């Protein structure tokens, strides 16, 4: 907290990153968006003793332990984004509400793959959700972002921030072209709790079905609002416990015994 050098360094990073500003460019069929937070992250990494040697071990540890609290300010803003949309969310159709449980699909695909890759506690952070801001805040509060779980959630968060938009745009067009889904179902699925990912997915669908465009955008936006509201509660009470259980059983299957010590749930 009293590490003034750290705060000074971070302030400089913020100023530089914001001065560079947002940049967008076309890549193939999608748009890649570079945000100030991404520059701040990358420049921050390059200050490490391995590269520029601006920060030392204590600075890095202090930064890690502060992260959980800094995220709360963002979460307060997040709540104020969701609040005004609540009346619309409450009037959503049953299809919109029930498809929210589909977001748990990440666990059934993600946990086995993560553990096949040899990840251990990273799995919990990485595979319990698509790792948007509330999930990062939750993992940060429960395990600390400088833990293995924290590395997992940060890894997926960063991947999503860098290429999530383009990936969702592509995935929506592929699903519409090759899978037997109605465009309405795909539009509802697009709302995963990230406005940019949803916009990219719905944008692709609208381009393919221009006559349905208004309806697709409405479903996408409503579903995204819903995910923004239920994502955190679902993570706390359903997704994280489910991920822990699957982790435990796959761990036993793979390593022959239930996880203990560092690998066990905390």
């Amino acid at each position, binding site marked *: *907290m009293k590490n003034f050098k750290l705060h000074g360094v*971070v*302030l400089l*990073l*913020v*100023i530089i990153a914001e001065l560079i500003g947002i940049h967008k460019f076309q890549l193939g069929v999608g748009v890649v968006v570079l945000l*100030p937070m*991404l520059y*701040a*992250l*990358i*420049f*921050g*990494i390059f*200050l490490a*003793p391995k590269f520029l040697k601006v920060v030392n071990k204590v600075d890095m540890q202090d*930064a*890690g332990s502060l*992260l959980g*609290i*800094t995220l*709360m300010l963002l979460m*307060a803003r997040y*709540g*104020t984004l*969701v*609040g*005004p949309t*609540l009346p619309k969310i409450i009037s959503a159709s049953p*299809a919109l509400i*029930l498809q929210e449980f*589909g*977001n748990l699909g*990440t666990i059934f695909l*993600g946990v086995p*793959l993560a553990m096949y*890759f040899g990840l251990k506690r990273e799995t919990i952070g*990485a595979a319990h959700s*698509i790792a948007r801001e509330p999930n990062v805040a939750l993992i940060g*509060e*429960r395990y*600390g*972002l*400088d833990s*293995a779980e924290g*590395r997992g959630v*940060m*890894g997926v968060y960063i*991947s999503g921030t860098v290429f999530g938009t383009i*990936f*969702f745009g592509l*995935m929506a067009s592929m699903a519409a072209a090759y899978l037997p*889904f109605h465009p*309405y*179902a*795909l539009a*509802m*699925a697009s709302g995963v709790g990230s406005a940019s990912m949803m916009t990219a997915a719905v944008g692709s669908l609208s381009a393919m079905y221009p006559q349905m465009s208004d309806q697709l955008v409405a479903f996408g936006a409503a*579903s995204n609002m819903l995910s923004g509201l239920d994502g*955190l509660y679902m993570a706390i009470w359903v997704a994280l416990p489910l991920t822990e259980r699957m982790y435990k059983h796959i761990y036993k299957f793979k390593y022959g015994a239930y996880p203990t010590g560092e690998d066990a749930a905390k």
Partner: protein
Amino acid sequence: MKTYNMLETLIILVIVGIMSLIGNTIGSKNGFVEAIPGLLILIAIALVGIAMGKYLPGGIPGVAYVVTLGCILTYPGVPGADFINACMKKVGFLALCTPILAYAGVSIGKDLDAFAHSGWRIVVLSCVIFVGTYLGSAVIAQVILKYLGQI
């Protein structure tokens, strides 16, 4: 993990608030002074939410209280909601992300080897996770819409 008492928490929130304020002024068209009320409200919501998570029984994480408080205070019709919404318009969501990711970047320097070790795996895993949530939701929506006769 190091824990902070409420006074330390407040000081950290204020430090990050000031940084967000500066970033918000540079990166958006919002003025420095007009964003101050919004940031003060955010600091208050965060502080109360963290305290509730810490002291209320039930083991519900502070983050859940923080988000819920933010929702309630801005719900249309709640006294003061219009004022808070107007204040919030001056505080960009992205401007709040920048200082956090700067701290995250500095902190990641410590675990660079661990990140490098799991790097490509996490990227592949991320793609599979995105596919999982998308197809999971699409299957359910398709079944329900069909059942309701809406498609």
